[in-house]
C-alpha cells in the first residue's frame, strides 16, 4: 500500500543539505514533518488554510500541495529556520510584541508568508501585507495584530 520508497530526494532545508528516501506519492508536508520539521502544521490538506506554508526557492507555497519529489534540489525555509527564542527573526519578535499570536497554530505558515513578502518587497503597504497573508487562515486573532506586526517590521526598514 505505502509503496516501496524508491526515490531519493535531496533538498537544502534552512541552509542544511538533507537527503531523504521517499516515494512519489509522499507530500512535502508529510516528509518534512516526519523528519522533525514540526512547525509545519496540517490544517486542511487541500491548500486552503496555509498552516503548512514553506518557502521553496524563494516562493511561499502550501507544502500539502507539493510532492516531495517535485522539490529535488530545492532550497526550503521553514519557521525553524527563521529564528529561535534566543535569536528570533524580527517578524517573530513583532508577532509576540503586537499580540499577534494566540493559539499559534497558524503562526508558522503566516510568518513564512510574511517573510516571503518582505524578501521581495521590503516596504509594503498595508494592502500589500493583507494580500500577502491572504492564504493564511486564522480563527483566533481577526488578523489585525499580525498586519500591524508586519507593517512594524517593514517600516523599520531592516532587511528581513
Amino acid at each position: 500500500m505505502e509503496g516501496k520508497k524508491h526515490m531519493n530526494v535531496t533538498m537544502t532545508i534552512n541552509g542544511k543539505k538533507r537527503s531523504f528516501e521517499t516515494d512519489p506519492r509522499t507530500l512535502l508536508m508529510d516528509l518534512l514533518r516526519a523528519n522533525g520539521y514540526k512547525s509545519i502544521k496540517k490544517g486542511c490538506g487541500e491548500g486552503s488554510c496555509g498552516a503548512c506554508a514553506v518557502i521553496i526557492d524563494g516562493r511561499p507555497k502550501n507544502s500539502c500541495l507539493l510532492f516531495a519529489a517535485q522539490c529535488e534540489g530545492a532550497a526550503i525555509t521553514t519557521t525553524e529556520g527563521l529564528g529561535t527564542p534566543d535569536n528570533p527573526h524580527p517578524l517573530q519578535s513583532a508577532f509576540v510584541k503586537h499580540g499577534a499570536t494566540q493559539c499559534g497554530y497558524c503562526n508558522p505558515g503566516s510568518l513564512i508568508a510574511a517573510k516571503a513578502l518582505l524578501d521581495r518587497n521590503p516596504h509594503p503597504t498595508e494592502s500589500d501585507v493583507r494580500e500577502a497573508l491572504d492564504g493564511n487562515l486564522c480563527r483566533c486573532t481577526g488578523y489585525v495584530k499580525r498586519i500591524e506586526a508586519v507593517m512594524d517590521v517593514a517600516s523599520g526598514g531592516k532587511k528581513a
Partner: protein
Amino acid sequence: MKKVVKSAAKPARTAKPVKTAVKSAVKIVKPVKLTGPAGKTSVKIVKPAVRAVKAMSAAKKPTVVKTVESVVKPVKTTAVRSVKAVKPVVAVKAAKAAKAIKPLKSAKVKKAVKPLTPAKQVVKPAKASVKPILAAKPVKVAKPVTKPVAKPTKAEKPAFMAPAPKVIIKKASPIPEPVFEFDRPDTFNVVNHSREKLDGYGLVCGIQKYTGDYDMPDTLQIKMLTSPHAHARIKSIDTSAAKKAPGVVGVYTWKDVPRIARTTAGQGYPEPSPYDTFILDNKVRFVGDRVAIVAAETIEAAAEACKLIKVEYEVLPAIFDPEKAMDKGAPVIHDEPEARMPIPTFFDAKHNHCAHVDTKFGDIKKAYKDADVVLERKYYPHYAQHCPIEPHICLSYLDENDRLTLRVSTQVPFHSRRITAQTLGIPIKRIRVIKPRIGGGFGTKQEVLLEDVCGFVTLKTRRPARWELTREEEFVSSRTRHPMVVTIKSGVKKNGTITGISMKILSNTGAYGSHALTVMSNCGSKVLPLYKTNCIEFIGDTVYTNLPVGGAYRGYGATQAAFAMECQMDEMAAAIGMNPLDFRKMNHIKEGEGSPIFKALGEGREGVEMKIGSCGLPKCIEIGAKEIGWKEKQGKHGYGPKRRGIGMCILMQGSSIPEIDMGSVFIKMNDDGSFNMMLGATDLGTGSDTILAQIAAETIGCDHSDIVVYSSDTDFTPFDTGAYASSTTYLSGGAVIRAAEQIRDQIKAVAASMLNEPVETLTIEDRFVWGKNPKGKLSFAQICRFAMYEYNQFQIAAIGSHVTHASPPPFSAHFAEVEVDIETGEVKLIKYVAAVDCGTAINPQLADGQTQGGALNGISFALTEEYIFDEKGRMLNPNFRNYKIFSTVDLPELKTFLVPTYEPTGPYGAKSVSEICINGPLPAIGNAIRDAIGVRLTRPPFTAEKVLKALKDKAAGKHE
C-alpha cells in the same frame, strides 16, 4: 427544580467585616474606599448566593459546612483589609515564640511549628490530631494543620519543653470559605498591563508542541467508518475482509465495545446533558455518525480497510426539520432504553424532545394589551462550525504503570478523564489526561469526542493510538453551533417603555444531545436580562434531528438569541419613531440593577440572583457611536446602485457558572525566587496561562515571568472545570489569588523571622520584602533558600480553590457600516466597531485580541458561513474551499475599544471577555442592512442571493 436553601450554619457569609472577634487584639485598619478607573466607589454588595443544589442524585448529600469556633476566625468574605490583620497576630506570636525557643546552636530541635499557612489541601487534612499546645512553644496557627505533628519522643525533647497543659483549640474547617470579593489595590503593577505572552516565542518559533507533534514508536493510526445514512439500523457488519487487509491490527464494531450511555459534553458532574451516546451503537443517527473503528499501522491502510467493511443497513425515515421533530409519527431518533438525563430535568426522547425550560414573570398578555405596538417575528440563526485550524486530535498510550495516558487537544481535561473512565468502565485513577498546546477550540473541544476510541484501542492492543480528524470529519462529525428558530414577541409604548418580552426557542441539537439544554437556557439567561421590563416570558425547547450534532460554541446560545433580540429592538424603535441608539440607552440594564432572569435560568438548573456590579455599557455605546459616525451617517444612504447603512447592537454575556464550577491552583516557590504554578485551567490559545501568571504575580509581588506555568495535566494540576463559560479569568483567576495570597503570606512570615520584625510592618515590592529598617530587605531568592535549606525548613507552597457566586456580565456595543449593491444583493462590510466592558482587562492586548478574533468570527458567520445539506441530510460543503471564513483581504476596517470598569467580585476587577464579541455581528449587520435598504433579513447568512430576493419581495409587496 426544588430549591434547597442551605441552612446558614455559619454566620460569616455576609460581606460585613467581622470586627468583634478581634477587637481587643488587633488594630483595625479602616477599610479604604478606593476610587478606581471607573471613577466611582465600586458597588460592593453581592447578595449571598442561594447555593443551588449541586446534585439531585441520592448519592450526594448537601454538604454542611461545619463551623468551628476558634480564637481567630479567618473570614475572607470582605474586601476589608482588617480581616487580613487577623493573621499577623498569630504570626507575630509565633515569630516571637520561635525566637523565644530558638535553640542553642548545637541542638537542632524538631519544632512543632508548622508552616503558617492555611489548609494545604493537597495533603490529607489532619484527623483530630491537634496536639496539646505548650505555653512556651510557638502557638499553633488556628488553621487546620495538614500534617500530623511529629510527636517529639521523650528522648528528643529538650529540657525546657515542659509538658503543656491541655488546651483544645477547635480547628477551622479545612473547606475553604466562600469569597465574594477580592482586595482592590491602589495600583496595578502587573495586571492591566499588556505583558508578553509567556509561550509567545515558543509559538512563533514553531517550538511549542501540539498533540500531533508528538511521535511515539509503534503508534496505531485510527480511522472511523462513518454512516452514509441519516437514520438507519445496522443489521449486520462483516469486518472479515477488513481485518485481513494489510497493515490492519484491529477492526471493532458495536459488539466489541462496552455499551455505556454517556454524554460527550464536557460539563461538571452530573452533566446537564442526556446520556445518549455510545462508543459505537447498532444504530446510526446522522450522516457521519460512527459505524466501526479501524486501527492500522498507517492512515492509508486504515482508510483502505474501512472500504472493505461490509455493512447492511436498514434505512429508516429521517427527520431534518426541527419544527416537525416533535410531531406525532415523527421517527424516534433515540429509542434505546439507556437514553436518559442524569439530572431530573425534562427529557422526552419518544418525541425527540430533548429539553424544555420555561419561566415567566408578570402577565405577558396584559403587557401586550398595555403596549402601543406589539411586534412578533421569527429568526433563524444557522449552523456553523468553529473551524479551529487544528482539528480534533488525540494520542493515547499506556505508561510504565499501565495507566492510560491521553494526550489530547481538549478544553476540559478533567471532564475528559471522568467521562472516559465512565465510558470505558475503568477507574478514574487509571487515566491521565494531558493537554498540550491547542490549535484553537472555541467550544468544539469542550467535548470528549476522541478519547473513548483511542483509549479503547490502546487498552485492547496495548499500543499507542492516534486519531486525528480530517477537516471534513471536523465539519461533519465533531460539533457545531445549534441552529435555532427564535420567536420574539414584545410590546412597546410610544414613550419607549418595553411592556414585555417573550422569547421562544426551538433549538436543533442534531442527532445527540450534548449541550442541548444548557445552550438553549443560555439564550434566555444571557440575553433577556439586558433590557428592563416588568414582564418576561421564556420558553425553550430542544429537539433531536438526524443532522450533525450541536455542541458548545463561543457565545453558547447568546449568539443565536442576541440576533433575534437586537433585531427586535431595532424594529420596536422604528415602530415608535425612536432612534435605535436612544431606545437602547433608555432601556438597558444599569449598574446596581438586577433581573429576575438571573435567578430563574441557570445552566440546567436554577441560576443565581445577582445585581450588576459594574456596567460600562453607556460608555461603550458612546465610544462606538462616535467611531462609526452614528449621528453624521443617519439617513445618508446614497443614491445609485450602492446604498450605505449603519446598524448597532448591545450585548451582555456572563463570567463563569456560579455555585457550580470550581477551579483550583497550586503554587510552589523555587530557590531562585521563581514559582511553579500548576493549574487545571486550560489555555487553548487564549493566553490564560499568561493572564493567570499576571494575577499571581500581582498578588505575590513579582513579575509574571517569574511564574512558570504548567497547565493542564490531571496528574499534576489540581482540578479545574476547564475553558468554557467564560470562566478562566473570573473563576480560575480567583483561585490564583487565593493561592497566591497564601504564598505571599508565607513569604512575609519567613522574611519576618529572618528580619526579626513583625510581619505587619513588612511590604513586598518587586520580588523584595522590605522591612521597617531600610537595610532590612530580602530578595525572594534569599527567602526561599532560607525556607528550603536553612531554618524551620518547609516548602513555600499553597493551593487555592474558588467557586464563584455571581456571573457578572461583560457588556459590549457593536456598530456596523455596510454597503449593499441593490442590483446584485452583495453586502460589503465597510467598517465594524466593537467596544467592550470586561471590567479590568488583566492583559489589555490579549483582551483586545479576543475582541477582534471574536468579532471577525461573527462577521463571517453573518455573511458567508453556512452548512448546505442535500435532501438526505448529507453536508455538501465540508471543507474550507466551500465553507468560507474570512481572510486578511476580506477583513473590513475593524476598530475595537476596551472600556475599563471595576467588577468587585472579580480578580482585580476582571470579568470575562472571550465570548461576548462573537454575538455582535449578526444583529449589527442585520440592522445595518435594514437601515441601508429597508429589508429585515431573518435567515442568515446574508448572502447576495438572499438580499436580492428580499429586495424583490419588498418591491412586490411581500413581507417576511
